[in-house]
């Protein structure tokens, strides 16, 4: 998709999202879901950037999210740093770990990278619960149950009044999507495409796979870590239960629905997936069954997700028009 069209599409999406509180502002429950949609849309977009664009099968996105959340909560509690700064420090920490994880991955391929990054996810739980975690201040298996709410210029954002926090998160999400768009647009994006399609040829031309891949690890884990911090200060409590399989699968479904490597797709996917998930929730076990079946059918029928489908329709129309 052309970059201008992505920008336009983003503008449309965000302006629609921005007016949603007019309809739902009074219902905390729905506002809460919308805030979570914003948070997941950023996480999923980052995942899409690393997996869809850079072609690195990183499965550690949830882990970086949780690392960011814990880091921000611990930094505010231990060093008395205001949440708004702590969130960025958390991003830096997540980025640091991202680089550490990225380093061994650069030599690896496909399913190996998926495994190594997923290993971070798997190890995180025993580490956070165990002696090391407790020494840092993760509260072990009890988790952290008191986290300072977000506070900017003396204004406190609390989860009982979600509308201000919604706009704060929207602001963050807009900036994150802007950054991702800028990356795709810049020569990074071109380099990724080149590396993904023909790595050997691209490196012959002087595109450094090492540099770009490490940079994308750092950037996506930074953004994911930051948004994790915002999550921590919003929900006000943390536990290792976020590392269950449910969240991981939900993010995967978001990408399937939105389309892999179809950038604003992940954002649309987040809103649709979370909405469907909530509506199916009263069905109990039939929710994941339906979700699973949906993934299977969508991958087969809509290989590029909703955005891909629109693109196809759009291109067809254009062709028809030009033929006429």
């Amino acid at each position, binding site marked *: 998709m052309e970059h201008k069209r992505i920008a336009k599409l983003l503008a449309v999406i965000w302006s629609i999202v921005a007016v949603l509180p007019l309809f739902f502002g009074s219902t905390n429950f729905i506002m809460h879901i919308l805030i979570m949609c914003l948070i997941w849309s950023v996480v999923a977009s980052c995942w899409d950037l690393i997996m869809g664009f850079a072609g690195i099968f990183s499965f550690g996105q949830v882990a970086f999210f949780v690392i960011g959340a814990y880091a921000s909560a611990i930094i505010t509690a231990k060093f008395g740093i205001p949440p708004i700064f702590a969130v960025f420090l958390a991003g830096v920490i997540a980025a640091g770990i991202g680089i550490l994880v990225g380093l061994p991955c650069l030599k690896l391929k496909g399913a190996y990278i998926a495994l190594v990054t997923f290993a971070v996810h798997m190890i995180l739980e025993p580490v956070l619960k165990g002696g090391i975690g407790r020494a840092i201040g993760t509260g072990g298996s009890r988790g952290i149950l008191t986290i300072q709410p977000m506070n900017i210029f003396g204004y406190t954002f609390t989860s009982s009044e979600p509308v201000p926090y919604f706009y704060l998160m929207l602001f963050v999400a807009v900036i994150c999507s802007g950054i991702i768009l800028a990356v795709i647009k810049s020569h990074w994006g071109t380099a990724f495409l080149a590396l993904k399609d023909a790595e050997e040829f691209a490196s012959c031309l002087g595109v450094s796979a090492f540099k770009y891949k490490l940079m994308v690890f750092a950037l996506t884990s930074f953004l994911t870590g930051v948004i994790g911090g915002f999550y921590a200060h919003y929900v006000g409590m943390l536990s290792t239960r976020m590392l269950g399989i449910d969240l991981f699968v939900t993010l*995967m479904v978001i990408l399937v629905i939105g389309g892999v490597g179809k950038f604003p797709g992940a954002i649309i996917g987040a809103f649709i997936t979370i909405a469907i998930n909530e509506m199916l929730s009263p069905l109990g076990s039939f929710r994941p069954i339906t*979700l699973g079946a949906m993934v299977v059918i969508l991958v*087969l029928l809509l290989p590029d997700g909703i955005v891909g489908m629109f693109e196809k329709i759009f291109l067809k129309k254009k062709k028809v028009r030009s033929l006429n």
Partner: protein
Amino acid sequence: MLIEIMDVIISGLINGSVYALMAVGLTLIYGVSKAFNFAYGSFYSMGGYIAFLLFGVAYFKNYLVVFCLAAPVLLVFGFFIEKLLVAPLRKRDDWEIKVMMITLGLALFLDNSYQVVFGARMKSLPSILEGAFEVGDFILSYQDVVIFVLSIGGILLFRWFLNNTRTGMSVRAVAQNPAGAQIVGIPKEFVFAATFAISTVMVGMGGILLAQKYFVTPGGGWNILIKAWVITAFGGMGSIKGGLYAAFIVGMLEAFVGWQFGMNWTLIALFAVLLTTLAIRPQGLMGKWG
């Protein structure tokens, strides 16, 4: 002390044999078709549930009969899953990631279907062989012996199949050089589906074998998938021999770390060893690139 170490070694060996059986199927699909199957763990549970169903029917209270009946069911199931879900994706770009996604969706679907059909509670199967033999202070249950023998036997049988049958040889040919294999007239598409089906049978059989010791639960396949994944990567994806070595190394590692440092450290130690290995040999112990 000697008895203790013997105990630990035995538990490492038995675990290793189980892991080997689990990993062989996964490494096979990856080696032949470069597809990663996220529903592998769900196929494992499926084996257990099929056996549970068969044991519910009065005529089939015998493991030999259960194995003989379950194998063709799993074979057909695996074949059609590949034909219907994986094969159509092969021609698309980014197909590797799409196969991961579709099999993840399938896993979600299957695991929760088990829960709806069989309930959340675990199901148990009768023990395959009761009793144990003792040599001094040393005890080995027949159940463990059976698991060890059948796992290793299964793998050997499978090796024989790969080396000595026409289908097996075409599987190896496709794994080594898909384009070349097609030129000499090996039906590539059929081989892909057949490999998938065989790996489904292997993991499903493993599921039955282990269910009589460790039970069947709807989400129980995840642990198996992760272990098999680690072992295949460790041994080199696509290398059956590598997988075999890796399985026993992992089994021993777990047993010794659990004994000396505690159970909570096994996972961390496992990944530490895996990362070090991959940092030195990115293709795993015995894997090849390409």
